[in-house]
């Protein structure tokens, strides 16, 4: 038996991507507009490797430090008009370093 085929079915790796960000963010933006929630972004600095996708896609919400690693601007509060962009940034982070919370 020379094959090293995986013996168990592989656990599916679908990092939040199972729910399309576009669907989620339209809904979140609607609720945000109605004043029901505050949306915040946060970069996990241990996970971030400086791909810089968030700062390219949502420069109003993310900035880069002198090494090119990302952090949220201010306390990460997302204005209603930028909720789409927050989810877009999250959906494009290869390291899964961005958290978007709704409270």
């Amino acid at each position, binding site marked *: 038996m020379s094959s090293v085929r995986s013996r*168990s079915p*592989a656990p599916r790796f679908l990092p939040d991507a199972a729910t399309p960000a576009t669907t989620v963010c339209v809904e979140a933006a609607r609720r945000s507009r109605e004043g029901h929630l505050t949306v915040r972004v946060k970069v996990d600095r241990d996970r971030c490797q400086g791909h810089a996708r968030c700062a390219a896609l949502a420069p109003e919400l993310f900035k880069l430090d002198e090494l090119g690693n990302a952090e949220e601007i201010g306390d990460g509060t997302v204005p209603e008009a930028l909720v789409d962009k927050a989810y877009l940034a999250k959906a494009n982070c290869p390291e899964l370093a961005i958290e978007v919370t709704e409270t």
Partner: protein
Amino acid sequence: MSRPPVDDWNTDFDHLDPRWIENPYPIWDGLREQCPIAHTARYRGVYFPSRYEDVRAVAYDTEHFSSRRIIVRETPPPRIPAPPITSDPPEHRPAKNLLLPAFTPDAIKRHEAHAREICGKLIDRFADKGGCDIAVDYAQEIPARVIAHMLGLPDDEGDRFRQWIHEILELGITEPAALMKALSESSKYFQAEIEKRRAQPTDDLISYLTHATIDGAPLAEEHLIGSIRLILIAGIDTTWSAIGACFWHLAQHPEDRQRLAADAALVPTAVEEFLRAFSPVTMAREVIKDVTINGCPFKPGEMVLLSFPAANRDPAMFPDADRVVIDRKENRHAAFGLGIHRCIGSNLARMEITVALQEWFARIPEFRLDPAAKVTWSEGTVRGPRRLPVLF
């Protein structure tokens, strides 16, 4: 060089097989279905994970998988340090942090005007000729000139640099003599450049590294030369391949071509999709401790081909993974790697690819493959067109 042909990709794959070089995607799709972590006894034992999740798991696991060897070769050469790409923790972080400030998006922005000028001058040479070889006349020249300028090297020595790249990354897989020749020639060349800057510092990356310190100590000679060689090689071959692959697709897809020609603002989004669909770079790792991933045991001493290109075609991760969707909104592709070894030049590459497309489209909106000529592809670690004749 003669290796027996491959009968069974699951148990005997060979990444230098002509079919793999020509069009690896159907092979990888088959592996992902049948044998998601394939193995070959060739090259002294190599594993090939083809699913995104497994590639990610290996990339994140620096305890069991070392970067001290990052190229699969028939005969392992003596160690060739090229920090930080060949570094493991804890040496990796300081070596990488030294380089990062020169490669942030803001730092790269300062080279954009120069890159546009380079593209414009290259296009001047063939714009009225009715055709050109995009790989040779355009794609290979852009990154070579930009990175030479950043390092402080002459911008007309691309042929010399590409010869070293060919010997180190292609010939050197099976011919140790070619590898050793290129290493010794390039070391001597860099040594002379370093000496000049010791005498008289200049405003470039070689000078910066020559005078840099980690924990108060200057870089060891081997580290210094290795880092310079890394920046030069990784700065040229990869982006040359990426630019060529974009044009290879566009030459065959009029609808995508017309959209990009009409809308320069869509180019950055399309670049991400080209990077996903035609990721040029496959890295490697050496297994250093027994470990099992997804049911597959990895044996120390053997290598892993870390195929970000295969991961980026995994349908479990990307809907319509085999289709090029130039306005794809969600694109967590791993073209620049995952984890601590994220490509240091990713912002530079993105800028160069974007500029190369925009400047081309501003002058040559319509073009197609030359039906009388053949497209050829590189082999080994970095995949991209090496001949790409087009008509316009």
